[in-house]
């Protein structure tokens, strides 16, 4: 493992890893973004990156049904979901709702630690796949964990929704690695799961905003008689 300078991965692995790294970086971007709108846009870009990764695997490994999945997940996650959430946000008239529990720099450093944990613990599992390099799997573990940090540290409904959606992005990236040949119907079922989540979070955002006139969840920890 430590003979690092020995060889670079080949071009396919290198570019797949780079896309996976971009997905992780966008997750960090969501963690840092102060504007809720920017967060949702970053989510859309991240979904686009995951779809591109699916397309790369489809083209590079000859799995044509992944093209369908790529197109479907692009349509749903990069276009429809962000549009719906942005629309909800426009109705709420809130740009910035409740900052993080920590400062941005500390949040990033904390997430680096958490991501490193996910990264190396998944690497030590020794899962290999024919579709994508193992690094992509470790990166998707890091994406999932950073999404958790995002949901925990940001105190507003939109960030938590975006954290949940992007967690799903991390998981679909992991599924590209371990089960690239998974039947399309299962993948589609996952996407429908996401649709349900969007509806639930949409209702949550509306109800919460209607009750407390803000998107922040900071005042939810008090009991009301």
């Amino acid at each position, binding site marked *: *493992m430590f003979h*690092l*300078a020995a060889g*670079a991965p080949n071009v396919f692995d290198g570019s797949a*890893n780079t896309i996976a790294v971009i997905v992780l970086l966008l997750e960090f971007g969501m963690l840092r973004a102060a504007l809720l709108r920017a967060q949702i846009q970053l989510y859309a870009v991240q979904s686009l990156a995951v779809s591109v990764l699916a397309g790369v695997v489809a083209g590079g490994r000859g799995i044509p049904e992944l093209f369908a999945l790529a197109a479907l997940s692009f349509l749903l996650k990069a276009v429809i979901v962000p549009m719906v959430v942005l629309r909800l946000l426009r109705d709420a008239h809130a740009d910035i709702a409740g900052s993080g529990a920590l*400062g941005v720099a500390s949040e*990033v450093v904390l997430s680096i630690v958490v*991501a490193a944990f996910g990264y*190396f613990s998944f690497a030590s599992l020794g899962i290999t796949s024919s579709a994508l390099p193992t*690094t992509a799997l470790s990166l998707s573990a890091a994406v999932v964990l950073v999404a958790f940090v995002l949901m925990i540290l940001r105190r507003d409904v939109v960030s938590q929704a975006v954290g949940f959606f992007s967690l799903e992005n991390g998981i679909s990236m992991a599924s590209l690695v371990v089960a690239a040949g998974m039947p399309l119907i299962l993948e589609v079922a996952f996407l429908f799961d996401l649709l349900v989540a969007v509806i639930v979070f949409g209702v949550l955002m509306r109800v919460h905003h209607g009750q407390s006139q803000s998107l922040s969840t900071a005042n939810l920890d008090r009991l009301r008689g």
Partner: protein
Amino acid sequence: MITLPLPLIQALQVLTIMVGAPAISGVIAQVEGRLQGRRGPRILQPYYDLAKYFHKESLAPEGASAFFLAAPLISFACYLAVPLLIPVLTTFPLPLGNMGDILGGGIVLGLASFIVAIASAETGDAYAQLGSSRSRTFGAITEPVVLLVVFSVGLLTATDLPYALAGTVMSGPEQIVRPAHLLAAAALFMVILFETARIPVETHSGTLELGMIEHARTFEHSGPYMALLTWGSSAKQFVFYTLFINVFAAPWGLATSGRLDAVALAMVSLFVKALALGIIVAVIDNTFAKLRLFKITEFVSAAFLLAVLAIFTLYLGGG
């Protein structure tokens, strides 16, 4: 075609940086002016400025020692020592090219800025001291990023000689798309934005003291000493650009032999690439809003993240 002797090429590397640096600054200032809806200064304006400074008298504050006057000379010499170590014109190491590695170059650059900071601390001027203390503080924050970039270069090439990395990058497309290389290059780019006083808080050409870090340090210098400091800071910018272009991003167009035409072509291509990078930097500089001073940590933490991820992907074997 004549083949140039190696020591001459080595001297040409330094001369290219020395003579070309003000032109790069001039083009950036021109582009910046256009972006802001002004006509912008002439491209040769930095040279006229230098000529003007060299003809002015120089004053030193009362009580300042000879070090105050020596500092501009030393820092200028430091900036011109770095081109000996990095691939400016050639792909093959020149006689003095293996004298120091990337860390060595970093130390020389750090020394230059340290010397200027000490000199400005001698003046007793509040703004100059403010600038030097700020530049030291924020320099310390960016240091870990630079170190991690150097580490990832070391892991990529099993050496930390800049020539080796440039050679590795040119060896094939799989070396370019590997995430570790891209991340380290992006982290270095962010450090360059910071070090050349573009982003995130400094105004590059403004006269507002509170927005200055690098420029505040030189307040008390005048005449030829001021000229050397100004020249030095544009040389530093060109050195950083060269480091980024010829080591990380695009080490193409360098001379593979000492033939005159190859070296001349390398000079031209270096200028073209540096101008392209400078225009990108100017666009970034004018597109993003400046941050509050204390948000520097946010900017640096982003660069740090990139550098750490580069190391991580390398250790996973997928970099």
